[in-house]
């Protein structure tokens, strides 16, 4: 086996991939949440800016490259988490009858797989609702100064006027927050970046990120739902 294959088939190498893909997805979340903040102001122009932004995000070549990196990161993160989980389960064929794990570690850190699975299920639903519809669905079209633009805002409003759907989003964002609260700082540790000057800051930033970003995401469906009532 070449040194390169050796590295990435080792447990440390697989964790390196988990870390790198995770950090890239964290960067993706920043862009995604920042862009979608427009939802809070979209009603003023009946979603025109939001729809033009959606068009830009699906057609701009640079964004295309980033989006393919995002798909690869998601698939890599999922694939390697399955490989690692299988190995980790095999490493303890007979379990303990009494376990007091809460005495030595945080619940989130021990349940990244469970939390990640729910986030993945959410992602499938989320992509079906918007990403799939935007690319291949039959979306109504708006005419802005002679240019035909898909009216994603109408789809967003329709989706978030259903209470159960809003509830699902809020629930899944809570799970994402737990996933991030461990994942953010853990990614740095896996890269070997642990230093008494920076690690306390990384942990604080990670916790703030894990709260703020999912909170903003969760507020979007809630806001649109309240808007739909009146």
């Amino acid at each position, binding site marked *: 086996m070449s040194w390169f294959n050796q590295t990435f088939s080792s447990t440390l190498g*697989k964790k390196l991939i988990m870390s790198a893909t995770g950090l890239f997805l964290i960067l993706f979340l920043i862009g995604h949440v920042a862009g979608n903040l427009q939802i809070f102001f979209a009603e003023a122009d009946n979603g025109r800016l939001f729809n033009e932004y959606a068009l830009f995000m699906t057609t701009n070549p640079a964004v295309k490259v980033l989006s393919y990196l995002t798909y690869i990161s998601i698939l890599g993160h999922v694939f390697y988490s399955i490989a690692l989980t299988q190995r980790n389960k095999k490493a303890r064929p007979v379990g303990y009858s009494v376990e007091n794990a809460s005495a030595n570690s945080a619940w989130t850190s021990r349940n990244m797989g469970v939390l990640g699975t729910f986030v993945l299920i959410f992602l499938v639903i989320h992509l079906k609702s918007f990403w799939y519809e935007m690319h291949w669905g039959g979306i109504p079209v708006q005419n802005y100064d002679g240019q035909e633009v898909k009216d994603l805002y109408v789809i967003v409003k329709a989706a978030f006027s259903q209470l159960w759907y809003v509830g699902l989003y809020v629930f899944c964002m809570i799970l994402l927050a737990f996933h991030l609260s461990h994942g953010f700082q853990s990614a740095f540790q896996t890269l070997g970046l642990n230093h008494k000057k920076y690690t306390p800051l990384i942990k604080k930033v990670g916790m703030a990120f894990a709260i703020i970003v999912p909170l903003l995401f969760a507020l979007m469906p809630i806001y649109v739902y309240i808007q739909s009532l009146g």
Partner: protein
Amino acid sequence: MSDELFFQFIAKKLITIKKMNLTLKVWRQKNVNDKGGFQTYQVSDISEDMSFLEMFDVLNEDLARKGEDPIHFDHDCREGICGMCSMYINGRPHGPKQKITTCQLHMRSFKDGDTITVEPWRAGAFPVIKDLVVDRSAFDRIIQAGGYVNVNTGGTPDANEIPIPKTVADEAMDAATCIGCGACVAACKNASAMLFVAAKVSQLALLPQGQVERKTRAENMVAQMDAEGFGACTNTGACSAECPKGISLTTIARLNREYFSAKASSENV
């Protein structure tokens, strides 16, 4: 102190010593191939000043008197430095206290009437040999893969002949306190040996004597760790929290650095 006063002191001490009656649920397993299972024992008149292992000695003497097979468990120095004792007590390696081994755990950490569950370390790489005794030679093979210095260091050098900053020496010493007991593996939900390997790699990577084999050491010890079937690190921190020597997670970060940079730059293709 006069004899009379001394006897009074002892008598008073004996009266105030609390005696405990406990129920023990202990894992019994005849050999590697046996399926094994829990057996319940009652122990009475246990002094709170006894160590956990001494409590087991009392139970074993009782079992021997009855002609039963005593409970097998690993122990050696009984002062927290050899790393032999290895009991998983009420869901935690080395019991409820931090930074101690099982031999340093005293019965005053328990209450009269408690039920205590005692299990062996659980890991595929640590097969149970008998009862609470597990085979930890996987750790020895990891050490054989690179946890040594191969240069002839000669006689004792003069003090300060090789200048090493105090902070670096301290860090190396902290890592070197690892006694290889395996509590990290036992505590980790993935049965990962990262803290053990990280401590051994750190201890040598920090000091000048360890530089010669620095890269191959990190590569070979990690390869052996994986070959033994230990799990991967999820950074839960359970290992460090349960380590009797309190070895820090910073050593695991260092192992990651050492391994990745060794893989990227060593001569081993």
